[in-house]
């Protein structure tokens, strides 16, 4: 943990580095570049290509040279940066407080007062804005679709946030509940012809039920072991979906799942459809915009329920459990029930999102629910700052929307060549991002958290003061 931000001038200041040791920095950077060379010798320097049955190697030493040069340069810049920073730190600024200060609303709190309504307004009016900007319903299809995708991940992130962020239980198999929701809707609607509005709560209940079933055996486990067991459960669910061909149609998946209706009115061109009932000209985009508002409503419901739960005893018990399980137990909190409710409620929102996924795609297959999907949702929660609702939303927008935006920037293609597709590097960057986040900001983008209960006055609670996840 880093030191608290309040420093005193009486502390002995370390020796002030007066100059930047260029020779040492260059030497160290050269070492880093040499290691990069060693790392990239086989994997980057030769590419295996297949012709017929044989593999042959294509050398790419130019690429290796470029990457080594980049590492050298970055390392040098890092050294220069660290030198100036340690210089600045060593000389205390006269403005720094010498005594403990009364907590004022921080920059984040000030910003969130205007920021949250602003973002909410954007989200609510997004389809209208896009239609106005793009100048027509059909032109805005891509953007509305992207909005739906991002909101699905926001919802999944908020759902997982209950388990990981609030209760502190690292769940690597969250995608299993997403799959349960999706398959519940797919099977119930294709077999029994139930409508989406009946299936949605059913899918949530079934997913919550599975959350309890999977949660029950792992109650005794903590930390790493819990994470690995949930990972195993997630994989078992996927493998069963692949292999139980009679029920799930195996790897081929279930197709032609009925579309969502506008509370009973189908989005079709004929009589009795949505368009003709409201006297509109038929357009397939009506369904998309309806889906957008549907997922927005579901996501906001997730957020609302979470925010309210945090104020209830069960929510406080979750957060207490995250901080210290043993203390929790000694204070008489029933940790079994607390963990199970976290699993079940998190799973329920996963189930809602899953059934939305099925109705949007009209097709489900086990490949949509692999471990990588769990890891992406976890990355969103982790990068957003575990437990912070706004952070999760921002992380989902950046991680899911970012690569899509990059793909549309044509100048990137002129730099990296016409075949450049940022999506190829998306997961690579996810991996780097997760590591970087843990190294530099282990508490995520938004590490500040509103205390859920306040005694008389607001006091400073900075992320670094709260030990998280111990125990």
């Amino acid at each position, binding site marked *: *943990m880093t030191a608290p931000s309040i420093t005193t001038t009486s502390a002995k200041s370390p020796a002030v580095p007066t100059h930047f040791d260029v020779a040492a920095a260059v030497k160290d950077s050269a070492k880093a570049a040499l*290691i990069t060379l*060693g*790392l990239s010798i*086989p*994997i980057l320097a*030769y*590419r*295996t*290509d*297949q012709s017929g*049955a*044989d*593999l*042959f*190697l294509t050398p790419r030493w130019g690429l290796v040279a470029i990457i080594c040069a980049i590492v050298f340069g970055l390392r040098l810049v890092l050294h220069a940066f660290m030198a100036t920073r340690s210089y600045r730190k060593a000389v205390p600024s006269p403005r720094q407080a010498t005594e403990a200060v009364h907590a004022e609303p921080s920059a984040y709190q000030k910003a969130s007062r205007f920021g949250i309504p602003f973002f909410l307004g954007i989200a609510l009016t997004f389809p209208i804005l896009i239609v106005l900007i793009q100048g027509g319903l059909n032109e805005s299809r891509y953007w509305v679709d992207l909005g739906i995708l991002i909101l699905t991940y926001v919802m999944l992130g908020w759902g997982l946030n209950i388990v990981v962020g609030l209760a502190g239980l*690292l769940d690597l198999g969250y995608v299993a509940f997403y799959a349960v929701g999706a398959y519940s809707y797919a099977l119930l609607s294709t077999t029994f012809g139930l409508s989406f509005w009946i299936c949605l709560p059913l899918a949530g209940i079934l997913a919550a039920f599975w959350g309890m079933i999977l949660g029950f*055996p*792992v109650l*005794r*486990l903590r*930390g*790493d*072991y819990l*994470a*690995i*067991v949930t*990972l*195993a*459960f997630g*994989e*078992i669910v996927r*493998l*069963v979906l*692949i*292999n139980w061909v009679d029920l799930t149609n195996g790897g081929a998946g279930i197709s032609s799942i009925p579309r969502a209706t506008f509370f009973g009115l189908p989005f079709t061109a004929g009589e009795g459809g949505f368009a003709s009932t409201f006297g509109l000209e038929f357009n397939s985009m009506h369904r998309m915009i309806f889906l957008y508002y549907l997922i927005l409503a579901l996501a906001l419901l997730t957020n609302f329920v979470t925010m309210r739960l945090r104020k209830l005893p069960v929510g406080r018990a979750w957060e207490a459990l995250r901080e210290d399980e043993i203390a929790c137990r000694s204070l008489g909190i029933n940790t079994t029930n607390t963990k199970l409710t976290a699993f079940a409620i998190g799973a329920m929102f996963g189930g809602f999102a899953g059934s939305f996924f099925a109705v949007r795609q009209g097709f489900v297959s086990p490949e949509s629910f692999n*471990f*990588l999907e769990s*890891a992406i949702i*976890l*990355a969103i929660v*982790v990068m957003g700052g575990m437990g912070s609702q706004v952070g999760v939303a921002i992380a989902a927008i950046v991680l899911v929307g970012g690569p899509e935006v990059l793909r549309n920037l044509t100048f990137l293609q002129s730099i990296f060549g016409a075949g450049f597709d940022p999506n*190829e*590097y998306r*997961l*690579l960057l*996810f*991996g*780097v*991002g*997760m*590591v970087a*986040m*843990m*190294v530099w900001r*282990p508490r995520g983008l938004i590490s500040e958290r509103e205390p859920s209960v306040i005694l008389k006055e607001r006091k400073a609670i900075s992320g670094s003061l709260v030990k*998280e*996840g*111990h*125990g």
Partner: protein
Amino acid sequence: MEIFVQQLINGLTLGSIYGLIAIGYTMVFGIIGMVNFAHGDVFMLSAFIALIFFLLLTTWLGISSVVLALFIVLIIAMVLTSLWGWTVERIAYRPLRGSFRLAPLISAIGVSIFLSNFVQVAQGARNKPTPPMIGDVIVLFQGASGYNVALSYKQVIIMVTTAVLLTIFWYIVQKTSLGRAQRACEQDRKMAALLGINVDRTISLTFVIGAALAAVAGTMYLLYYGVVSFSDGFVPGVKAFTAAVLGGIGSLPGAVLGGLIIGLIETFWSAYFSIEYKDVAAFSILAIVLIFMPSGILGRPEVEKV
């Protein structure tokens, strides 16, 4: 009977590969108490390194003896994979000592995603088949129904290499000062540091040894299956972790024993029950072992200090 003996041979071969990977998990868990989630991907990476050097040696340098080529490939793969293991520890795990409990695991998941996608971007998403290496078999005995029980040279090479390397490894851990330092850090890191052991260096070396053994496993995997793809790290990684847990995490003989058991279970399950559900079986064993006997067969029960 013939099928049983054949499956026993296959299971032991597979089990030695799992055992080699499992040692990496169990050593790291023993010394810093984290699940090195990226270990399976380090294993996959080493198989790629071995593949590329095998092609370089046979086609470009014209080494015709496959066994000699394999030996050189093994050494190179061990060295280069160790470098990867060291770098991963240095960049992704060392800065996190003293961070909150889940931080190293999340970081390891990040490394795992990075490594598999790095290989995918650098080498393409297709399966990479190796040129045929060693095809000869020794027919042990012929069954009544004409079913030959065969021991292939590949399997002999895999089992002998594993046995030799495990002996060397056992010697390092038990007899050298490095091994003593490692065991000391495992028992009490702070005390070891007070007694003048360089803890950071010892932990780095643990990762290096783990990666080197994973490289042996990677080379053997390539030799055995003759094909590798960027996504091949995940499932063997989880199975090897299962092996480590089953044997008792933190226990080195336990890791090898667990590896052999998991290899045998997998082959017998595929032969007698259903090949489709063999991964389900492995994952279920993992869950069952963690829930009901988290200290494994040879492990010490974990005592919680408050």
